[in-house]
């Protein structure tokens, strides 16, 4: 896990997707600030409690906490967080968060809730992988992110280039549904 001087490149410390009780759905850390699973859990718990009472549903919210910028948004029973160092440009981080929550929305076809997210956990993890690489922002456009994830999940039989993204998503979901429930 490399860390970069903020002077040269905006960087993300971690991405968290928690449920309405603060439990992990999917998380990814890109920083050595939290070296153990216990310290990660403590951090998640305090981020969750600090933001719990806020209304981050229509617009993304933000807070400064323990020397970190936390930008977050809640959709149904899912809590999306993107965390960065406190001298980061919060609008860049908000942009990452939007890319994250929107692409999850696309991949889950609007059915953004914990259960569906867990059923499609592979997509969520791939989604995070396509947004941030080792702390560096890879992509923030939700359509592109979802497209990249879905193209990977498509059966070899149907060439992706002939499908629209929404078709691809539909295929992807059905594919995964079958695969998990087989």
């Amino acid at each position: 896990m490399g860390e970069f001087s903020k002077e040269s490149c905006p960087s993300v410390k971690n991405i968290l997707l928690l449920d309405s009780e603060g439990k992990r759905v999917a998380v990814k850390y890109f920083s050595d600030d939290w070296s153990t699973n216990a310290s990660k859990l403590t951090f998640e718990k305090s981020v969750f409690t600090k933001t719990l009472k806020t209304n981050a549903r229509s617009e993304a919210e933000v807070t400064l906490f323990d020397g970190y910028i936390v930008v977050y948004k809640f959709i149904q029973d899912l809590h999306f967080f993107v965390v960065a160092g406190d001298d980061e440009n919060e609008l860049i981080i908000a942009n990452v968060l939007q890319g994250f929550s929107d692409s999850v929305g696309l991949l889950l076809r609007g059915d953004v809730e914990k259960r569906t997210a867990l059923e499609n956990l592979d997509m969520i993890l791939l989604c995070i992988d396509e947004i941030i690489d080792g702390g560096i922002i890879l992509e923030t456009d939700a359509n592109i992110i979802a497209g990249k994830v879905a193209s990977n999940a498509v059966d070899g039989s149907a060439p992706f280039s002939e499908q629209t993204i929404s078709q691809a998503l539909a295929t992807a979901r059905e594919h995964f549904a079958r695969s998990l429930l087989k």
Partner: protein
Amino acid sequence: MPRSLAGDLTDPEMAQPYMKKDDDDDEEIEYSPFFGIEKGAVLQEARAFHDPQLDARRCSQVITKLLYLLNQGETFTKVEATEVFFAVTKLFQSKDAGLRRLVYLMIKELSPSSDEVIIVTSSLMKDMNSKTDMYRANAIRVLCRIIDGTLLTQIERYLKQAIVDKNPVVASAALVSGIHLLQANPEIVKRWSKEVQEAVQSRAALVQFHGLCLLHQIRQNDRLAVSKMVSGLTKGSVRSPLAQCLLIRYTSQVIRESSMNTQNGDRPFFDYLESCLRHKSEMVILEAARKIAEMDVTSRELAPAITVLQLFLTSSKPVLRFAAVRTLNKVAMTRPLAVTNCNVDLESLVSDQNRSIATLAITTLLKTGNESSVDRLMKQITNFMSDIADEFKIVVVEAIRALCLKFPLKYRSMMNFLSNSLREEGSFEYKKAIVDSIVTLISEIPDAKETGLLYLCEFIEDCEFTYLSSQILHLLGNEGPRTSDPSRYIRYIYNRVILENANVRASAVSTLAKFGALVDTLKPRIFVLLRRCLFDTDDEVRDRATLYLQTLDGEVALGNTEKDVNEFLFGSFDVPLANLEASLRTYEPSEEPFDISFVSREVKPQPLQEKKGPGKKQLAGAPSPATVSAVDAYQKMLSSIPEFSGFGRLFKSSESVELTEAETEYSVNVVKHIYKGHIVLQYNCTNTIPEQLLENVIVYVDATDAEEFSEVCSKHLRSLPYDSPGQIFVAFEKPENVPATGKFSNVLKFIVKEVDTSTGEVDEDGVEDEYHIEDLEIVSADYMLRVAVSNFRNAWENMDPESERVDEYGLGVRESLAEAVSAVISILGMQPCEGTEVVPKNARSHTCLLSGVFIGDVKVLVRLSFGLSGPKEVAMKLAVRSDDPEVSDKIHEIVASG
């Protein structure tokens, strides 16, 4: 399209636990496809990866489960990880794209060891050259994450190609990997400059962003190259907002560095930053506004940045409001006037739903507010305080303290606010912040003293924190007796003796005694109260009461006058505790009792704490025991040398001063030991030539430029072998307690003998030789101990005003105010108090408080007022008080001659 419920699940591990629970209560249990999942079972399932007929769906499902386990914090043992890794590598045989993607993810998660990496290298290299862009991009990212330098040189060619690939995803993957690889393999990545430069010109937004980032990292140590890169790009070929943000960062960096080098203040790229304020993307505007605000710009240049931030304040997006108010808050710290225009918008943010925004708005207002708005502001804050968390409240309290110091006339409403806050529920940290603020206001604003003390008295009537009660009682003891009506505090203090725990009771007894000692009219009544404390259940309380009764009553003789008694009981304890601790540790029980006056009183200067990253804040620790015991060690060492044992107590030992350049044949540094009537120069010599042995090493000191010193004795070094340091001492006599100064020139004289390094044999015959080392000076600062006082104002007032000497000095043109302040501090060699050595940025004037002990054990306090007159012209007013008026004059002489 939520998928089916448990009934459809055929996977036994996943379904069964759920089914069981389902029977009793299906409302309670939360559905999860991973319910009851177990590591052991999943690892078993992973054997399916070895199946010759791979079932892609099943394998995807198992990998997802493994990823789930890792994500939940489960760890694999070394053996398990290796097993899984090998199993996963088998999956490269499958053509299923989705599965391949999960395989990539899994390999990254497992971070395989270098001998394992070899197994997948060829598969990944094949994918890297595949026709499918998605494979290529991801294979590059995985491979670059796991390989080392030697493998990297093998694939370097492909990576260079990938950087300029027409597919932006592939190019970005290669560039981002380059950024990571640069840390460990800079020499390889630097060879890609040409390709990276091409990527910067790409039409794809993110390729440009990643390219720019990597190009800057490659060139970051070459200032000229960065400057060239920036000047090329600011002309307008950067499209994506992210890349623009980067360019703004690099531009401001170039501006910062160039303004440091050139004095003309010309800012070649400032126009670019300003143009970014009109960009259509908000993140670019914010980045530019923030960078401009951080710069040392004129108010006129700052204004447009403030204007765009002001617009953000009314945005519907919380993140935007937050970003703007946070930036304005920072600006307000140094340039409050620049932000006053935003006050109306800031006031409406006080009721913002987002408490972080509201708190930042409040604290900004507290910095920009003017005297007339204080009362209104305090009213607003009172409403706001009830529903925020304690940590925000602390921020607000601290801001109020600063505001009150700015507008002392308004202390009433702010003091009132603080005392109301004290009454409400709150954590220890919050209460402590309030008490600290009130204490500061009491010591800074004389009018506020009595009200403040009464508020604190009320607080301790119902205070659950022992620490705070004791602190307040101590303060009452110092301040209360000097108020107009000391008797009003007695009731509060004595209540503590009746109601509180032993710690607080003991503090209260001491406080009572102080009133008794300082206020004659109260003495008899205090004695009555103290006598009651003699029956306390706690021995510390009883002991204190006994001590005070005996001494204040004059039954036990302590010195001659009442003043001596008070000095003994309540005088400041100026021995640093760390030094005392270290001395006590080295004290060996003997006939001679421990003498506290032998403990060094010098505060070791703290090395500046490096700025730590967020979340890793560290408090400046106590002085490290090593440095403290070094002082003790000197004292011990010197007194063990018979020639020096008659010199008395060691007053001070200086830091070592190098007398030779680094990496010369012989390295010599010197430590100056100061005694009342003597100085001892300790030369630490090291011979850095393996082929030489030095014998009869002496330092010939020429003291003709140091008239008041006469050499009394010296101790030479019999031999100085290679790389084993030795000491030479030279002692001088000087008039007692006189801070004599002078210059000493030094020559090292010795006999050189050749050494055969292979056998270690030494040549019999030596040659006499000498070696010139640098001159050494004894300056006035050498006679000054850095001794801190805890309360400068108190200490100042307790000194005889007759001893005060004031004069003004012109310091001429200086680099900055801060530079002038630190220069004067180092000339005097005194301890800065209360953090006053730090000069705020852009300050036009500054007051610095210093304290120290001058030779002859004379306490000295100095108040320095600096001001800028004209461009960079610094003037200084120096006021000195000390136990000895002659020393006050001496301090002026030091400054006048420095």
